[in-house]
């Protein structure tokens, strides 16, 4: 956690990269209780105009959260996270979470952060606040 206190404005947190496998949305549905068929049934998703079953937005948000708790080394450090869901996330494509420090004041760090699959920014205009206990 000590590294957090060394961050300055303009620094980047370590990138988080994860590729959700084909069945990840099913496991996330079970873990979260969100069984909306657009996330787990490719045929249903296509019937309602989607390219296929799409990732849960809150799964992608959890990856943004994880990038921050990993950087801090402790889940308690994440105090706030706000995100906008925009592009649709797809299974079997790598998610890259990038975060840049925009405020650093002793033990408190605020980042601009986003998650993207290639050029498709699935979470944008996101802001996270970390605090060293």
């Amino acid at each position: 956690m000590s590294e957090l206190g060394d961050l300055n404005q303009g620094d980047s947190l370590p990138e988080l990269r994860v590729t959700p496998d084909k069945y990840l949305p099913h496991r996330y549905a079970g873990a979260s209780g969100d069984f909306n068929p657009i996330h787990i049934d490719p045929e249903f998703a296509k019937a309602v105009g989607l390219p296929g079953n799409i990732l849960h937005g809150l799964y992608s948000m959890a990856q943004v959260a994880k990038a921050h708790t990993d950087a801090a080394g402790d889940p308690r450090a994440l105090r706030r996270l706000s995100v906008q869901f925009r592009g649709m996330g797809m299974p079997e494509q790598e998610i890259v979470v990038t975060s840049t420090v925009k405020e650093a004041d002793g033990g408190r760090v605020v980042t601009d952060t986003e998650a993207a699959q290639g050029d498709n920014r699935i979470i944008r205009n996101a802001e996270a606040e970390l605090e060293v206990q």
Partner: protein
Amino acid sequence: MPINKDAVGKEWQPVTYEVGLEKIREYARAVGETNPVNLEREAALAAGYRDVVAPPMFCVVYSAPAMGPAVLDPDVGINLAAMVHGSQEFVWGEPVCAGDVITTQPRLADAYEKDGRGFYVFMSESTNQDGALTVRGTWTNIVRVCES
């Protein structure tokens, strides 16, 4: 179809959720969490937690059961087929550990129309068995409107 603002301020029945150790593990594994404090009791205790601690975003697991009836309420009148989850904010308080009992109170904070779309802003407040706030959520759902 205009946005019905009559339900703004409405609160729904609080929902209580008992946090199980294996549910935390199941969630932690699904999101790829590898921090031992989220998986192993000994590691969590050594780090000063009361028991295995949930990753922050586990808040969706214990607060979603309270949000469902609010989003589905005919008084709010959301057309679910035209709804997307537009944005989300969480502000965390006390960590949530296995064995905690969390109660979540949902409320419709705002409903308004902008650029031909309806914005429905729900707030949730979750507290643990000691009355300490664990998370405050702001859930913004966006609905395509003006199709009448």
